């Protein structure tokens, strides 16, 4: 999986490319662990990632909780059809902000 960071003040955008699965979810988790300090607005851009398994959802939920605890926000952008199905099936479409 290719992850690209874009920082603008206290806003961070991470572009994901590839599949967010059991093997790649730890990469996203590690990147966010080191990059979220002082971030108030996190955007995860799924334009090039339309495969998110439960391991990926775990990272998204943990990150959502972490942002919330720090009074920040997290949003998902460019969500594709397959990922949207997963979000709707798991009720997470009502939890996450989706652009």
């Amino acid at each position, binding site marked *: 999986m290719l992850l690209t960071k874009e920082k603008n003040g206290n806003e961070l955008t991470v572009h994901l490319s590839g599949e967010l*699965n*059991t*093997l790649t979810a730890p990469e996203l988790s590690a990147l966010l662990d080191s990059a979220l300090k002082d971030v108030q607005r996190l955007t995860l851009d799924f334009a090039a990632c*339309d*495969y998110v*398994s*439960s*391991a990926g*959802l*775990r990272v998204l*939920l*943990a990150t*959502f*909780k972490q942002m*919330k605890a720090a009074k920040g926000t997290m949003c998902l952008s460019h969500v594709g*059809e*397959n990922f949207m*199905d*997963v979000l709707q*099936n*798991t*009720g*997470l479409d*009502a*939890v*996450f902000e989706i652009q």
Partner: protein
Amino acid sequence: MAAEQVLRVPAQLSCMDEVLAFVSAILDAHGCTPQARTQLRMAMEELYVNIANYAYPAGDGWAEIRGVVEDGVAIFTLIDGGMPFDPLAKPDPDVLLSGEERGIGGLGIYMVKSMVDAVEYVYRDGCNRLTLRKKL
């Protein structure tokens, strides 16, 4: 009638890509839609990862994946010789909870159930057998 294809691997996470490539190859040979392909790959990932992580607490083991498309229905079976475990027996998570109320896990098997038409578990001859069916 199409012949069933079989892949046997060590039950390790490092074999996940090989398992998913096997699944894709069978589906691609039958002109599967991208959506059904992704859903079946995701379902197989969830079930295979469970085997790799939990089936053999004492050490090394194996997993066998069988796949076929018959009359437009994809049928995949995962078999392992680990401890008897029915992942379908777990109650479904409450998907109406808010972000704050939720745990961060427990969604994998629920996703499998929602992405295929039928999933069935049996323990037979010392093996766990999970069979997925999905109309393509």
